[in-house]
């Protein structure tokens, strides 16, 4: 059956990796972090993304190493399941269905088979109530298990998962009320009424691994160390203060000698436990520190930052790796852009920088420092942000606008022009224009012709300016022309495909200028409503000019006749032309969901419509040229052949449209990968491979024609063995004998009638591969005479050993 719409919205890379604390594997080789609806595994040494554990259907909200097996990891998700993974091979081992939305997971070495989960009680959507529950994970062989044994540990806890920690023997967590603060240890709580200050609410908690000590971080930047809390009313605490803003995270090193803390200042502080105020600092790590975690041997620390970054730090306080995700921050100020050279997605990243992100590899390429100023990590400080950026058509020039003081009256902004340097392969500052306009720059664009580059900026001071590179040998940019129209505020500007026309919209009026002579050619007007978006048609439709207004109107003018070609009433929030085809995508927001229309300017009928793309308004979208063209013949997906449409929702999710053929291709490539995986060189493979070679040698005299390579893995048992992770298998010495026995089946079947029963079971296992068995029989027939009496006796002994565990093992596997 052919799907009715084979184009669907998929979430693509660039999801948050800083939602929950990352964890470092016991051998310090891997860093795991929750990212979107998967768990990503990175290498600590090379910072490379190795693979991701995919299977959850909603946001992964917590991960924890299995204390019983350090090669396994638990993950919990908002879809209500806890999954157990083997993270080295990326295999899902078990799924436990809980049934509630889960928000965090904790494990404790003392409680085997029990995980602690944060769940939300769906009592009231406004006042969500969180509860910490202990879940006994049933030990069942099935892969999907429903865990029903929930026992509430404590209720009404803070939604912030860093407010819960497990100690040596006890578990502590803080209640999140204003004042008085409650402090609870196990089953009894203490009233800390002596602290009446307004800002001493708990923000995080950590337990000392060896000592009876709890460290808490507070909103005013203080760290308190609590002792003696076992005895009611006799607790003591000491206060340490360095952070000037809230302490975001606390973590003891595994031996408990040091306490790590981090806050908004982006300084990792290491306090020596029990040494008073002695501390070490690691400043300027990036965004504010959200989580700190340590490896089990204490050699590596991991901090995750608000700019979607994980920093791996050695215990000697040296940064040894940075894993950077797509930085989305609180807001994307710039448009989504594509760097014409690297085809990377460009948008503003960490404060004062532009980031280049490869969508294809889902990898952060580099940051370009635009502001070139020390960033002060302090809450509520008004600092320079990159608000506008534009590339010229060949990627030689980049124009950026940075702005500061949006809130206060004195706005400061700087227009900068960057030239691409072939030698260093990056952009180099060419010109800085401090007072480009007298008021904020609203939009800017480069001319699209290849010979001369020209930049046009429009500003709130009612003027638009054209900037050109200096005529003589100096390569600096200067103002070429200043234009205005009846003192109206220009809102948008756009160059036609051949740069022979410049369209500037002044509120309701669109003016068409000739960039050569700077003559006002004509004005177009279609009231009511202020022009919101403006673009020229591309390729064969370059004679059309499309504009959207704030009053639900999409208009298309024919520039040859200077008349309105067509117009339609649709509320368009974003208009995005595809540079490689005639298509124009329009996102329209109506009745709380966004629809997508793709159309060609020469006809008012949409080519493609996708209803209910998402529930938020879309303001940023971009067409990304494909690496290799698709050849979809299907009309509905033809518009995606040359380029792919990415868009950013208000929740900062980067989404895209994928077609059926694309998914098929991806699926087939992943299948190929699986096949490749099966012939990985494992000790088992080597063992069997050797055996096979021997067999071949033996085969050659008897069956010279049958030179087809045999596949010893063909047997169900063996494949089963090979596909089971090594760490769940019993000792190799036990297995070895079993392998030998599995290969000797036919032989024993002919000679030893006493053990027929056992053999039957094994023969059943291998029944599916009868042909191979026959061949094996043949070969073994010739081998038998060579066995000595002692060897045969040994074999008999092996045959008699109990293999019933094996049957159980095999049954448990799917």
């Amino acid at each position, binding site marked *: 059956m052919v799907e009715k719409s084979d184009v669907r919205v998929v979430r693509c890379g660039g999801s948050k990796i800083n939602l929950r604390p990352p964890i470092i594997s016991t051998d310090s080789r891997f860093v795991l972090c929750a990212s979107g609806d998967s768990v990503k595994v990175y290498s600590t040494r090379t910072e490379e993304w190795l693979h991701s554990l995919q299977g959850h259907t909603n946001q992964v909200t917590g991960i924890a190493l299995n204390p019983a097996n350090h090669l396994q990891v638990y993950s919990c998700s908002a879809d209500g399941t806890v999954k157990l993974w083997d993270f080295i091979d990326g295999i899902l081992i078990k799924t436990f269905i809980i049934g509630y939305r889960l928000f965090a997971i904790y494990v404790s070495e003392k409680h085997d088979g029990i995980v602690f989960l944060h769940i939300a009680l769906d009592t009231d959507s406004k006042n969500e109530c969180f509860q910490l529950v202990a879940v006994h994970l049933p030990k069942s062989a099935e892969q999907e298990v429903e865990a029903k044994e929930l026992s509430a540990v404590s209720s009404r806890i803070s939604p912030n998962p860093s407010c819960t920690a497990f100690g040596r023997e006890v578990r502590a967590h803080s209640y999140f009320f204003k004042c008085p603060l409650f402090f609870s240890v196990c089953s009894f709580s203490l009233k800390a009424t002596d602290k009446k200050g307004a800002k001493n609410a708990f923000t995080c908690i950590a337990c000392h691994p060896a000592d009876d000590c709890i460290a808490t971080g507070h909103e005013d930047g203080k760290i308190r160390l609590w002792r003696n809390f076992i005895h009611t009313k006799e607790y003591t605490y000491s206060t340490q203060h360095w952070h000037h803003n809230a302490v975001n995270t606390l973590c003891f090193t595994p031996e408990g000698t040091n306490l790590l803390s981090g806050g908004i200042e982006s300084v990792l502080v290491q306090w020596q436990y029990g040494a008073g105020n002695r501390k070490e600092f690691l400043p300027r*790590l990036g965004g504010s520190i959200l989580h700190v975690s340590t490896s089990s041997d204490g050699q590596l620390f991991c901090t995750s930052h608000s700019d979607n970054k994980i920093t791996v730090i050695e215990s000697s306080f040296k940064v040894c790796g940075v894993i950077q995700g797509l930085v989305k921050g609180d807001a994307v100020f710039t448009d989504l852009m594509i760097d014409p050279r690297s085809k990377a997605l460009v948008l503003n990243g960490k404060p004062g920088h532009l980031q280049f992100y490869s969508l294809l590899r889902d990898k952060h390429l580099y940051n370009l420092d635009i502001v070139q*100023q020390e960033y002060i990590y302090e809450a509520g400080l*008004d600092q320079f942000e990159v608000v506008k950026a534009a590339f010229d058509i060949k990627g030689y020039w980049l124009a950026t606008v940075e702005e500061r003081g949006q809130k206060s009256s004195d706005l400061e902004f700087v227009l900068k022009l960057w030239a691409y340097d072939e030698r260093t392969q990056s952009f180099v500052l060419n010109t800085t224009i401090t007072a480009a306009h007298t008021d904020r720059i609203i939009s800017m664009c480069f001319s699209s012709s290849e010979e001369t580059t020209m930049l046009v900026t429009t500003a709130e001071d009612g003027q638009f300016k054209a900037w050109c590179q200096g005529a003589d040998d100096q390569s600096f940019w200067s103002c070429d022309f200043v234009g205005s129209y009846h003192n109206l505020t220009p809102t948008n500007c756009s160059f036609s495909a051949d740069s022979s026309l410049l369209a500037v919209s002044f509120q309701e009026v669109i003016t068409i200028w000739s960039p050569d002579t700077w003559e006002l050619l004509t004005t177009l007007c279609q009231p009511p409503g202020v022009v919101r978006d403006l673009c020229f048609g591309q390729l064969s439709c370059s004679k059309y000019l499309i504009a959207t207004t704030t009053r639900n109107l999409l208009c298309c003018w024919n520039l040859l006749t200077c008349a309105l070609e067509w117009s339609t009433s649709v509320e368009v929030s974003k208009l995005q032309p595809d540079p490689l085809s005639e298509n124009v995508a329009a996102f329209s927001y109506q009745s709380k969901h966004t629809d997508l229309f793709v159309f060609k300017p020469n006809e008012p009928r949409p080519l493609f419509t996708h209803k209910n793309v998402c529930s938020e308004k879309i303001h940023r979208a971009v067409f990304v040229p494909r690496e290799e063209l698709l050849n979809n013949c299907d009309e509905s997906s033809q518009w995606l052949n040359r380029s792919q449409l990415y868009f950013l929702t208000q929740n900062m999710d980067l989404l895209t449209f994928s077609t059926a053929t694309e998914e098929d291709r991806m699926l087939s490539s992943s299948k190929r990968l699986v096949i490749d995986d099966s012939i990985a060189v494992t000790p088992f493979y080597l063992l069997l491979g050797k055996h096979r070679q021997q067999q071949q040698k033996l085969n050659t005299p008897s069956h010279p024609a049958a030179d087809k390579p045999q596949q010893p893995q063909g047997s169900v048992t063996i494949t089963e063995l090979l596909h089971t992770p090594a760490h769940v298998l019993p000792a190799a010495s036990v297995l070895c004998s079993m392998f030998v026995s599995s290969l000797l089946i036919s032989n024993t079947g002919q000679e030893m009638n006493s053990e027929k029963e056992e053999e039957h079971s094994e023969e059943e296992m291998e029944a599916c591969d009868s042909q191979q068995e026959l061949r094996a029989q043949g070969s073994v027939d010739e081998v038998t005479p060579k066995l000595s009496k002692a060897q045969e006796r040994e074999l008999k002994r092996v045959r008699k050993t109990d293999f019933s565990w094996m049957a159980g093992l095999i049954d448990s596997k799917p």
Partner: protein
Amino acid sequence: MASFKPTKVQFLPKLGEKVTEETLYWKNYKSPVQIKEFGAITKIDFSPLPPHNYAVTASTRIHIYGPHSQEPIRSFTRFRDTAYGGRFRGDGKLLVAGSEEGLIRLFDISGRVALRQFKGHSKAVHMTSFLSDGFRVVSGSDDLSCRVWDVPSAVELSSLTEHTDYIRALAPSKLNPDLFVTGSYDHTVKVFDMRSGSSVMTMQHGHPVECVLLYPSEALLVSTGGRYVKVWDLLKGGQELVSLKNHHKTVTCACLSSVGNKLLTGSLDRHVKVYNSSYKVVHNFDCDASILSMAIAPDDEALAVGMTNGVLSVRHRRHQKDKEMLTSRRRRGPSYQVFVKGKNFVPRQDDFLVSKPVKQYLRKYDKQLKSFEVSKALDTALQTWTRTSKPDVTVVVIIELNRRGTLKNALAGRNEEIRGCFCVLFFRHIFDPRFSRPLLMVGDIVLDLYQQVFHQSPVVERLLQRLMEVLGREAELQQELLQVLGILDTLFTSLTPRKEALAHNGMHVTRHDIEQ
């Protein structure tokens, strides 16, 4: 992790003056050597023979200086009255000079007593010169006549009385022994041909002519007078080629450089201007007093300028050799050796390079900003030297502090001295468009903070009062400028009613200029 990013001092490019080959050439003179003479120096002439001694006519003497001597190597002092116009013959062996009493004397360079005396002029002779054959002397006098004398016999050959005012400029042709050019206060420049015995060409300069000069090709003639320098094309029958008005007082002298025939003019406005071949000023020498005479040595080795206060200032060319000597002397120090040690080592192809991180050196205020010592950083930026010679650094630190939101903290709790120095800072730079915005902001904060204590210090109070006056004046000026702008706006709109866009463009430019 990422290192501290130092605060950036904004560099604003200087408009105007472009560095070209020619400016570099003319900048390459050493600072002048000053020699005091007894009176105003009216004439300087270089000997055409090496080592290019030069004769300086001042008061009643003519001194001859060697190219690098500070003392005269020879002097002619047998004048009863002021001597004028001492000039060498083409072979550099004879010197002729006029005088106030009307007598023209001829000297041998090696002798002291005049070889010949030409009598005949009734008034002062300001200009004398040999004709290019070397046997005749021509002189221009205040008695309106111009006479030619025979050197061997000391007799007057002819007298030309075509000028109607003092003759103060004279230039013989070097190619034709019968031709010479005279300039007079009757505003004319005349070319005389001895073969016809009369003027063959007359040009109206329009101002009393102070100096005439022939180009080596003798196709072009330069005359100076009033504030004008005019170049005439003799081959086109004395057509005016170009008229230059770069001085703002009378141009008294002109000479041509021997390399590339660049024109130099000196004026009473104390400037020597150098023109390029398209008569654009490329360089400018400043002098202490009004310039009366000027000469440049062959090969442009030295430029001698004589002034009204009797000071002769000689600039010598700087040579590559001198520079090398300077640098070699510097290189002798051991500290430099230590400094460059290993820096100029070129690695071979198969060498393995171990790179060392470059140490970042921070300025003092940056170090303090790095450790969040805001008050100290402001103190550093307000040090007298920084404040006076690098106000941009001070302002950048102020902007940085404001960006960090700690400007108020840094400004608070200061003593009287600092407050005073803020006031001085305001005086000096508050109208500089680069600095006015941050300084106004600082001013607001300072006034808010110290409102209560200002009256305690009379010094600061006085400074504030002055500041208020200055600000009031500036406000008035701004208002006037706005009025002018309004007038210009109406003018432009009435001028180009149709081409709206262009008018706006032009208006913007003027507004910009006015703001500047």
